[in-house]
């Protein structure tokens, strides 16, 4: 007799495998992911493909339209600086800022939400009340004040934005933590002799991490948008550094005579935002088996 564990026969299933399969099944999500990867690689290595530097001024090519005949593939701005290199440099800064601020908001939000959800009771009520008050405030105005306080240190500023933007994350994690705390499989794991560390890392974290990943994917574009918005208002990245926001701002001022100065960074920003949002939505669908 050749008895085998039926679990080995069945195709291996599980939350992550199912989610991965569903995600790969979504053509839009795969396309968005491919575009994001491409843009990240382009932002990292693209500037080295072009002989120009982001702040060198080419006096012979002031406000040159895009074209492949000359070295300025995406044209130049009105100071003769190469837009291909500047746009990619800006994309790099936008992405870095998005990732940094999202990471900060994740760390703060998960810690806060997990404490509120697991401790519960009075502590939870108090912590949630604080979130309610904070989310009723016009945070943009505090961010504008912070830009003035932190001034030129861009990364410090975005750590501050991330530290402000953790509210939704904390809510999500708290909700998850509260649900999971009362579930039977936690009790079963405890009954089977699992210690608190094993329960947290093997049973709780995997159940929280899904929504966290989804929300993080949707936070990155929000922060990128926010950074561009601040830079557009002249509060974020300062010259000669460029971010997509500053490039769009200077492009908008020249749009009649040189529309490409607006279109090049504008299109990159829009594509980046669309792709992150599509990917985030698809991840949400993939990780939430109820809607499948």
């Amino acid at each position: 007799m050749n008895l085998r564990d039926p679990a080995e026969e069945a195709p291996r299933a599980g939350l992550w495998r199912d989610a991965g399969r569903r995600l790969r099944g979504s053509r839009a999500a795969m396309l968005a992911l491919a575009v994001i990867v491409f843009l990240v690689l382009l932002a990292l290595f693209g500037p080295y493909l072009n002989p120009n530097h982001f702040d060198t001024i080419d006096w012979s090519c002031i406000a040159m339209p895009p074209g492949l005949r000359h070295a300025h593939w995406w044209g130049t701005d009105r100071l003769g600086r190469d837009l291909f290199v500047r746009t990619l440099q800006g994309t790099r800064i936008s992405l870095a800022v998005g990732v940094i601020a999202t990471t900060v908001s994740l760390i703060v939000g998960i810690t806060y939400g997990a404490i509120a959800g697991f401790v519960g009771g009075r502590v939870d009520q108090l912590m949630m009340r604080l979130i309610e008050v904070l989310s009723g405030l016009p945070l943009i105005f505090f961010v504008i004040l912070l830009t003035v306080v932190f001034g030129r240190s861009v990364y410090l500023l975005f750590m501050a934005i991330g530290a402000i933007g953790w509210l939704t994350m904390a809510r999500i994690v708290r909700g998850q933590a509260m649900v999971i705390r009362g579930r039977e499989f936690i009790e079963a794991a405890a009954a089977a002799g699992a210690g608190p560390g094993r329960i947290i890392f093997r049973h709780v974290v995997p159940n929280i991490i899904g929504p966290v990943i989804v929300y993080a994917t949707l936070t990155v574009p929000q922060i990128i948008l926010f950074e561009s918005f601040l830079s557009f208002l002249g509060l974020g990245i300062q010259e000669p550094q460029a971010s997509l926001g500053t490039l769009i701002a200077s492009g908008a001022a020249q749009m009649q005579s040189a529309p490409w100065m607006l279109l090049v960074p504008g299109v990159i920003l829009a594509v980046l935002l669309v792709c992150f949002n599509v990917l985030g939505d698809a991840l949400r669908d993939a990780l939430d088996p109820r809607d499948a």
Partner: protein
Amino acid sequence: MLRYFILRLLAAVPTLLAIVTISFFLIHAVPGGPFDQEQTLSTQVTRNLDAEYGLNQPVWVQYTRYLAGLMHGDFGPSFRYQDFSVGELIRQGLPVSMTLGAIAMSLALLAGVGIGIAAALHRQRLLDHAAIALAIAGVAIPSFVLLPALDLFFGVYLRWLPVAGWEPGSPRYFVLPVITLCLPPLAFIARLTRASMIEVMQSGYVRTAFAKGLPLRTIVLRHALRPALVPVVSYLAPAVAMTMTGSLVVEKIAGLPGIGRYLVQGALNRDYTLVLGMVIVYSALLILMGLLVDLTLGALDPRVRLAG
């Protein structure tokens, strides 16, 4: 109801006070003052200016003075717009900003709910896909790209509408800014309405209504819409915050004389009173909006009728 309303209004006072306090000390902690400019003034002049505006006092004397002024409805003088008080600047700019914001929000609500319902009733068809595409576009195309692009197309190439500027009583100047401002909340509202409408249409009592033979129109408008609007109404407070934020950029690009520019300029120029005045106006509007949302939610859904 009235009792609840008054209680909530009273509860807003400490919140506003906390906001004012935090902002006050934050902006005063920033290095630099309102009279530091490229042109250095002589020490005597600076000293006189500081004395005139009370800037030579300790910060917290300034704070109590400022609060005392606020109690009398006085936002103080602007440091940079000489001869103007902050109250006057707000009175001049607020009507423009409010009109712009109110039109944009109403349009976003009406069109968003309409599109959402239409998409939910034609699920997986062309209309639905178009609505989803619109929702993604609304999230992904920032106002500071959209408005210049619209300006370029309708203002520069087609010459249908003015690119920027403002004349009192001329709605032509509002068209492009309103479209830009309403798109993000419109897209989000359409998405919320679609999702909740699909859910409500699958519920038992809607099936009963179909079984009774009611026409679709009656079912949607009389039975399904009310519960489906709950998430939309909850979203209105963040939507107003989003519109305020968008308004900063849109007013700047379109050259509208609203209050949006004062906040950024004020913060850059250390115009303490102007920044604080802006923060107070925006916070008060937002708190009021939150209150209206809660009242509307109570009216829409008996389960959240307010205790108190």
